[in-house]
């Protein structure tokens, strides 16, 4: 059974919510914390509600709507989200008040909106969707698990259209705390220089990317979602390479059938090493595109990567800003997205032009 990506929507630190050619005018930053560019949320959400919603909810609702509009679907049969951090802003607000006010005189709003399933719940509420609704919160696998759940349900035949996506936000607290773990560059790096910066650390990002998946091809579809796979804590690079080979085999193809690889390079010299190893072993002459210099690093950033890969298939061109190695292949039919998050969570997504 084929599963089609009938529509996509993305809100990110790039101007991805407006349509038009992919990354025609990429936003260049020189900072270690990127913020999503807000579209006009009033087109989807009542003004009064917007004020009460945290950014993660707005980004999720916005990207979900963009993807449904692109697919021409008004009522999906299921809504599945992946978010590693969940609703950090409301969590931080409630936690801060609880500590500062010694557990007294607290109000419910932030607590209500702090649960990880708030985004999926709000999308269902706004669409009036009574269908299947699930939220995966497994770090660097959150988005991939959401895709896998969607694929399994579509294959069962119990749904026609499934909305699936990944979303995460940065807050002042989260950025301050993640910085203390030493995840980010000590000094700001320019967007187009990040992936070749000779130091440890990356830049923080955020955003939402949603996909309307279906078993029937809609006019807007350019690619099939051919496969998704995750690999947890590989013992050595050989295990990653073996896993990729097995994944391609399971999807009836070889490295030679892949036209473009899209990798999750994030500019951290230690973390990017595995992408070199994989490219050397399996894809030495392949064109490679990258995306985390554009959207920043976060546990569901692969959703941005998949969104970008789908747009590349649509345009049959790799935009300058996304090229890491090589030039646009003559045809872009099969694209393999290989991402890892902090070396522990490796994932593969295969798209095939349709």
């Amino acid at each position, binding site marked *: 059974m084929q599963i089609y990506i009938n529509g996509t929507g993305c809100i990110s630190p790039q101007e991805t919510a407006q349509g038009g050619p992919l990354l025609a005018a990429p936003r260049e930053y020189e900072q270690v914390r990127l913020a999503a560019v807000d579209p006009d949320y009033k087109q989807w959400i009542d003004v009064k509600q917007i004020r009460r919603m945290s950014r993660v909810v707005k980004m999720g609702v916005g990207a979900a709507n963009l993807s449904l509009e692109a697919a021409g679907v008004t009522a999906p049969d299921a*809504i599945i989200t992946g978010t*590693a*951090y*969940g609703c950090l802003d409301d969590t931080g607000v*409630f*936690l*801060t008040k*609880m*500590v*500062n006010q*010694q*557990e*007294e005189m*607290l*109000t*419910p709003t932030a*607590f*209500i*909106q*702090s*649960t*990880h*399933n*708030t985004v*999926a*719940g*709000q999308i*269902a*509420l706004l*669409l*009036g*969707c*009574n*269908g*299947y*609704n*699930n*939220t*995966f*919160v*497994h*770090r660097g*696998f*959150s988005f991939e*698990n959401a895709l*896998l*759940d969607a694929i*399994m*349900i579509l*294959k*069962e035949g119990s749904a026609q259209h499934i909305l699936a996506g990944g979303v995460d936000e940065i807050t002042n607290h989260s950025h*301050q*705390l993640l910085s*203390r*773990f030493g995840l980010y560059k000590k000094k700001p790096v320019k967007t187009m220089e990040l992936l070749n910066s000779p130091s440890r650390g990356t830049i923080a990002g955020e955003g939402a990317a949603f996909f309307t998946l279906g078993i029937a091809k809609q006019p807007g579809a350019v690619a099939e979602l051919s496969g998704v796979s*995750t690999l*947890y*804590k590989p013992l050595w690079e050989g295990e990653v390479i073996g896993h990729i080979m097995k994944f391609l085999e399971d999807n009836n193809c070889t490295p030679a059938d892949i036209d473009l690889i899209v990798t999750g390079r994030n500019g951290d010299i230690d973390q990017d090493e595995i992408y070199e190893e994989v490219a050397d072993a399996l894809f030495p002459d392949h064109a490679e595109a990258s995306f985390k210099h554009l959207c920043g690093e976060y546990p569901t950033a692969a959703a941005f990567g998949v969104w970008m890969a789908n747009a590349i298939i649509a345009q049959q061109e790799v935009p300058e800003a996304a090229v890491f190695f090589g030039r646009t292949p003559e045809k872009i039919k099969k694209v393999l997205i290989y991402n890892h998050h902090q070396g522990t969570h490796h994932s593969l997504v295969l798209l095939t032009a349709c």
Partner: protein
Amino acid sequence: MSEKVWIAGGGVICGIGLDVPACIQSFRDMKPGMEAMQHLSSVHRSTFPVAEVKADNATLADMAGMPENISRTALLSMIAAREAWQSSGLGDISQYRLGFVSGNTVGGMDKTEDFFAEYLSDPRGGRLQNLLHHECGSITELVADSLGVRHHISTISTACSSGANALMYGSRLIRNNIVDVVIAGGTDALTRFTLNGFNTLMILDQQPCRPFDDTRTGLNLGEGAGYVVLVSDSLAARLQPWCRLSGFANANDAFHQTASSPDGTGNYLAMKGALDMSGLQPQQIGYINLHGTGTQNNDVSEGIAINRLFAPYFPAMSSTKSFTGHTLGASGGIEAVFSALAVKEGIIYPNARFEHQMKELPFAPVTAFSAGHDLQHVMSNSFGFGGNCSSLVFSRAS
């Protein structure tokens, strides 16, 4: 997808027992787990009774074989997951293509809230070690790493239905030949964050809760973990499985972020969907393990949905939350184990403290423990914030 998925075992730790036999004994003895807080430190200590696991972190760490300084959520998870595995008789864990799918809502919040007190007074303050396992997924990984699970690891957070959704996803992983065995369920430790959150919603009872009683005024929070071991048809053939996970469904109420719709739309759709998947008629269900939190809103919505689906033949029903408290992300897992065991042993669990018939409903919960019934099919309900409603159906082998 025709392949059947079986329950090969289960494990529970909660306010009425550190393992499954202890929990069953508490039901038999009519001993609910709500007491004044012993382990959670909160200004509300003497206001709200809670169903705590009756052990401190040092004891739990010893039982789990894990460090004492990690989140209580992980310690509880490890203890119940290991009991589940051992009860399955599958033996050496490394011999299987195995998944671990765990639901939780708090992650390592018990440590984060301690950290935050120091951090808020100094942005460089607080020990980062206490923040390391804040994420829900991190709790799952601590346990997966200790158990030796690597093939598929996932965490689900759909508020109070998290554990039930873990069973659904786990079942699909087996049917899609991604793994052969899945340890699925949920875990949650009590935290000040959740206690205060539920307090702001004004749905905590200051007395032991009274699910499905006309005088009910709210829920008691609990904590714990519960997991079943799901196995494929081919593996089940060489075991003596407890029962089959014959049906499940997840629906969204799409009514309000925290409240259920008055007619229980999502509840009805979840129960109906689970029945349809199992190919059963409502009258074939012998017992329902209710979501039954004891709040005004939940019990009336759930009851009305049950009335709509089951009238005029009502199965035996009870809320085991009247013993365990509401264990949030763990509840779907804990109640899945109780429900699977109900099929295996013919157990109907008691609903504690029921005295007054709800005026909206034509049925009442069961108030006494009994075993040895011929229960062919048992339903378990789990409903949560965000409109997330899930129902599971467990069926006898046949």
